[in-house]
């Protein structure tokens, strides 16, 4: 640990990220396992490390409403939530995105009830897939602090809200050595947000007013286009991070995937477990590799096509499920590879729902079953079955 490193849980890392990025308004409502994010932020505000206006609200819906209002004035707004809380925000998640506001949200992945659970899976954040938010899934606590800071820059540069996602407990409550960038290192990367729809008291306006169909459709197309633009900004920020701090991924992260016949595609902390398995297989001479999807929205179609080109088979390991369809990353990846000449066979497996541990054994089982010739099924295979 260097002197500028601290031992931080994922939640503390998220809070420090918001503070270092200069969050100006924090509106939040507590929910396990997110609560320590806003607790840490409250403490940072109290200690003067963060200058944010901290608003304790009565629900997640209000938290997002407050962030939307704050962002409209040009203030850097931040909130954090999890599972049921995120679901309660849903209506305003659409609003934040369609109003093109640079709100930053940290979501701690937690399984949806019932079957009450506080452990991790991705169905809460993936249920917000179509709201227009950028979604970044973190692999470790260093990436949490970096992604939160980058999210503020990304949001301001694209007028899109950004969700930074971290796994319950595996990251949220587990401490790792984390380097916290200094304010002066990162603040210049975050531009002032000055879109024409920023609230200006000298120029009163009604926001979100009635729009005829043709104009509405055009606005939605622009929202979609903004995501394409965001993909470039994400890579640009990743390049800046690599240059300045020598770390960090962009849209995806490839690990020993060059020349691999079999490539595991997964996200979040399962990817760090998978690295161990890939190392074992490579040591045994098995040509296997790993591609981690760090950014789910915008979905990195081009980057994935490039990274997977030449592989025989791709094994997608999902910690989520779109009931009635399949694992969601599996679904998205098959769509991304559809029509690509010589595309690999794609296998989909589901594991780790409701916080069930995903160990090297689990990852090995997924890869093993695919490599032994198990036929892929469109609805994903539940590994535990």
């Amino acid at each position, binding site marked *: 640990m260097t002197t500028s490193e601290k031992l931080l849980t994922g939640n503390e890392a998220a809070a420090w990220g918001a503070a270092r990025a200069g969050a100006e308004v924090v509106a939040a409502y507590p929910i396990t396992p997110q609560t320590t994010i806003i607790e840490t932020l409250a403490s940072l505000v109290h200690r003067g490390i963060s200058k944010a206006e901290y608003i304790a609200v009565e629900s997640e819906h209000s938290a997002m409403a407050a962030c939307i209002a704050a962002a409209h004035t040009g203030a850097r707004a931040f909130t954090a939530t999890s599972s049921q809380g995120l679901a309660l925000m849903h209506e305003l998640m659409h609003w934040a995105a369609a109003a*093109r506001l640079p709100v930053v949200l940290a979501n701690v992945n937690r399984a949806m009830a019932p079957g009450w659970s506080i452990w991790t899976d991705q169905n809460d954040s993936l249920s917000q897939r179509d709201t227009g938010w950028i979604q970044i899934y973190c692999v470790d606590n260093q990436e949490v602090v970096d992604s939160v800071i980058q999210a503020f820059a990304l949001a301001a540069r694209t007028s899109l809200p950004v969700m930074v996602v971290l796994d319950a407990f595996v990251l949220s409550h587990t401490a790792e050595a984390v380097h916290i960038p200094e304010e002066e290192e990162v603040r210049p990367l975050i531009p002032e947000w000055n879109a024409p729809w920023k609230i200006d008291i000298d120029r009163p*306006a009604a*926001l979100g007013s009635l729009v005829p169909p043709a104009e509405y459709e055009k606005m939605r197309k622009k929202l979609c286009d903004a995501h394409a633009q965001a993909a470039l900004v994400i890579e640009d920020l990743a390049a800046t991070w690599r240059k300045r701090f020598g770390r960090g991924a962009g849209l995806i992260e490839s690990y020993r995937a060059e020349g691999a016949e079999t490539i595991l595609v997964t996200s979040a902390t399962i990817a760090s477990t998978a690295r161990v398995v890939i190392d074992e297989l490579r040591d045994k001479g098995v040509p296997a590799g790993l591609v981690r999807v760090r950014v789910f929205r915008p979905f990195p179609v081009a980057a994935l096509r490039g990274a997977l080109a030449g592989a025989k088979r791709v094994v997608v390991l999902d910690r989520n499920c779109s009931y009635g369809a399949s694992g969601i990353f599996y679904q998205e990846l098959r769509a991304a590879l559809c029509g690509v000449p010589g595309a690999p066979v794609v296998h989909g497996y589901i594991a780790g729902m409701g916080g069930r541990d995903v160990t090297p054994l689990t990852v090995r089982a997924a890869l093993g079953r695919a490599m032994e010739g198990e036929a892929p099924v469109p609805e994903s295979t539940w590994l535990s079955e």
Partner: protein
Amino acid sequence: MPRLPDGRYRFDSLEELPPVAVSLGSTAWNRTGDWRSREPVFADQRPPCTHGCPTEQDIVDQLRLCAQGRIREAGELLLSANPFPATTGRVCPHPCTASCNRGQMDGVVDIPGVEAAIGDELISDGFVPARRPRVGGRVAVVGAGPAGMTAAHYLALAGLEVVLYDRDERPGGLLRTGIPPYRLPRRALDAEIDRALRCVEFVGQRALGRDLQLGTLKQEHDAVLVAVGRHAPRPLGLEGEGSGGVHDGLGLLAELHRGQPAPAGKRVVVIGGGNTAMDCARSLLRAGRSVGVFYRRDRASMPAFVDEVEEALEEGVKIEEWVLPEALLLEGGKVRAIRFVRARPGAPDSSGRPRPEPIPSSGFVVEADLVVVAAGEVLDAGPFEKSLLTGGFVAADATLETRMPGVWASGDCLGGGGTVAEAIAQGRRTAAAIARKLGVAGPEPDLLAARGAGADVIGFDRIRPHYFAAVPAVPRSKIDVQSRLGGGEVRVALAHAQASAAAVRCLSCGTCTGCDNCFQFCPDQAVVRDAPGRYRADVARCKGCGICVTECPRGACVLHDLGENG
């Protein structure tokens, strides 16, 4: 996207369309008020303190002025309802605080403490209310207690010529003869009486029935007010009540307050449970006697004010509950002991309280060389024709006019009530009625109605407590028992700053403070602010959602249903 000089953006194709809908036009064309079936009405209502106060003072406004440091203005307002604030602030059982909504939060507002402080300030300031120019009209007021003095004061301010008679040498009535100085310092009482009677001709040592006759008074004046109180002791009905060592409570207090020494007797038995009993017990305690109060019901049923009973107990008065006096034991024409019998609660009497029922063979004897009978007072009916009385009291109609036209009555001679505040309230009401009858502008009978307040009494359900920061009540301190037995005032008066601090705690129930909540929370900008504290609904745009009413912290805004045709 090119920006026009007026700040708007110009775009000529869908490609140039901004990604977010922003309308720079006004939505005022949208007359959303057409949808409404309800409408907010911004009107002050009645706070529970004023509702509980017999004098119906405008307490909220008084406290507001006091909180703003405008004590003189608070005092002027107070004097328009009650000429004796330094007095009532000390001796009133303060029903105003009984339903103070802040009691359900962090303790009631010390309304009597502030009232006394304002009263003291008015005294030291030497303030005197203005009198209207002299008009024709002559009024006689008989009885210079709180009711008579109040009526005389307001009638004199109305410009009438007022003569105030009393059987005593000095005005004050029960305030002077009954209430001990440790509850009501005489410098405060004297100053308030001087101010109240400044324009009144006072004639002492004139008793109704002896020196004055109602018929004659009526002939010589345009109006007559009888406010003679009730002073005749209610006897216990025991043999030997006239013996040496047996005194009636009010008579004893009058002597003590006139500066006479306390009658002889070391061991004192006081019979009764009202304020007179407590005042006798505590006064005799201060004269160095050992005192027991004997009451026929339990402590909670005593008519005496709770504070008085508590303070008496603190000071060392013993209270014996559920006991009935049975016989006075005499020796050489003087009392030596008294025999009691124990009682238990029986069937309820007309007051709803359990009637004390003697327990057979439970008699016991208490040695006593001074017995004070304070079992209540009745009207001395002597000066009145029978036709003027009902149930032993003077009869009066709703305007307090008696059955003899041109003669009004106020205060304890009417029966009921019995508090100073009630006497003052009746005095003001009668003054208003007499002034009206004589065609002159009298005191305002309803101060809140006069400033446009409605009649809704604002209960705690109309208060939004989350809008008020917690400021715990500071209980007024009392002098320690040893020092107070020296005769000084028991309760420490509030200093200027303390009074303002207490007044700040007022929630202003039902009274708009111009806090702007309605204005800020209205989602349609349909609340119009005409002036601070003056709001109205823009009915062309108000949808009747009621958010302004929900967010009014103090119930100064109500939602009216417009019915089907709204």
